């Protein structure tokens, strides 16, 4: 099975981009050959999908990576270092990279994972997306579907 995974806080501006994308895909039934997962703030729930039945995952997440706001980039977890970890500023389970770290340490079967990182303009309280992120919303949806469906 392939999964399109969204994580983030819907109420914290661009942090909610992941859940909004998977919600859009689910509402419009755009997923014919993959499942969608809205993890909200509960990243540890990802563990339920780390087993032999999962072939691939695409995580759609808000990522500070030094790009222009709204820009997106694909990468694999092993290509990056979490700056949150280096700064020891983890809250709760931290982020999906921390969940991955603990899953690996605990011996879970890790599927092929790719991250679609979307650079935020703002991560602060407010229900809407910032303008640079909002105007590319449909592009993200189309790209995410294409990426998880291909290959």
């Amino acid at each position, binding site marked *: 099975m392939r999964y399109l995974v969204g*994580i*983030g*806080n*819907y*109420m*914290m501006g*661009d*942090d909610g981009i992941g859940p909004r994308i998977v919600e859009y895909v689910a509402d419009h039934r755009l997923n014919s050959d993959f499942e969608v*997962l*809205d*993890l*909200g*703030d*509960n*990243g*540890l*729930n990802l*563990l*339920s999908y780390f087993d032999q039945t999962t072939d691939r995952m695409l995580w759609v*997440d*808000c*990522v*500070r*990576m*030094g790009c222009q706001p709204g820009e997106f980039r694909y*990468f694999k977890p*092993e*290509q*990056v*270092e*979490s*700056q*949150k970890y280096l700064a*020891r*500023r*983890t*809250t*709760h*389970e*931290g*982020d*999906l*990279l*921390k969940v991955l*770290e*603990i*899953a690996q*340490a*605990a*011996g*879970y079967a890790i599927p092929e994972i790719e*991250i679609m*990182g979307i650079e*935020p303009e703002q*991560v*602060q*309280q407010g*229900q809407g997306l910032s303008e640079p992120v909002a105007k590319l919303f449909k592009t993200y949806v189309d790209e995410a579907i294409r990426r998880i469906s291909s290959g």
Partner: protein
Amino acid sequence: MSSTPAGKNIKIDVHHLTRVEGHGNILVNITNGKIERCDWQVPESPRFFEAMVRGRHYSEVARIVSRICGICSVGHTLASVKATEAALGIEISLQSRKLRTLLKHAENIDSHIVHVLFLAAPDLLGAPSVFPLVATHGEVVKRALRLKRFAHEFGSLIGGRTTHPTRVVPGGFSEHPTTPQLTELKRRFLTDVVPDLNAVLELVTQLAPKFPAFNRPTEYMAVHSDSEYGLYDGVIQTVMPDGTKQKYSVDDYRSYTNEYVDPRSTAKYAKNKMDSYMAGALARFNNNYDQLHPEARKVAEQLGFKPPCFNPYLNSVAQVVEIVHSAYESLRLLDELIAAGIKEEPLVKPTKFGAGASVVEVPRGILFHWYQYNSAFDCEAGDCIIPTNQNHANIQLDFDKLVPEMLRADKNEKEMELALEMLVRAYDPCISCSTHYLDVQFKR
């Protein structure tokens, strides 16, 4: 405020406390033995959910408010559909009620496992986070992860999914689990959950003496029902430090929560008879000990844990007792549902319009929702009072007692900081601004 020993200078400034959901600050300033400042600050801004539901059809409201919290979205969904049903005169079936109670137990197990094992236990084991524990306590961490995973799958089976559940709607369930699915769930409970739970209990028993000794009697508020532990439904009940209990009607919840604003926090504070009250697992334990499943009471006795307990640090122990309660109550409900067989039921339709309030217990405490609907069943007004905010005043008053006590005991800055951090974490606060975005640097 002042205290001894004179001459002591302490400055604690914990900006964005870790291992809680969201942002909270701890500020303590002691100069020359005099406490000048001792604050629990919660800098959050209003999110206007109450405004967002206005004009929405009753069938849409729960989905909107489930976004209040990505951790307790089951609780918010249940509180929302219950308030809507109260407003619109909808009586759900016994089967729906049992399925919703099961979902509540799934949420309780899921959230408590994460709090006790991943957020609170590292403090007691001297670790900065759960990650070093994989090396030192790998088996327990694995078992905790399995329990967390099971709880998520359990909740997903009943609610469609655990984060923002889709099947729970006003009038019942839009889709039902099947009897064979529930039978399989019961099998997993017996073969997987019970052994893992016993291993976790063993660890907690070892850690129990390490919880700080601190007592501050306060008022404890929880949902109460004579027939269950008061998670899904009941009346409001408080127990005072002298053990007297008083019941209140859910419809009058505003009179007993009395939200107000304090300059130290942008989140609202709450109080009833005393200057603050506590909500959460310890409040439930103090109110509803008699309704605990016998297996959970047995665990409480083994831990030497009995009501009334005035030590807020032991909220985590109350959560452990509740995990056992929820596991065994789930087994009981599963037996009943399997014996009766799951029946497909149509959604119950509104019979009136007007206003309605509801109360449920979410992992962090008592949660209130209220809505008013017009004759077209569109929402005209809403109100939500969440448990984390109800606890802020109580945390502040704990600080006000604990800091002078620690000063008198000649604790150093580091010890004080850890004790205050652990205290806040014990309440398992879920502050609205939590985020989990990635902050990365590409490897060269």
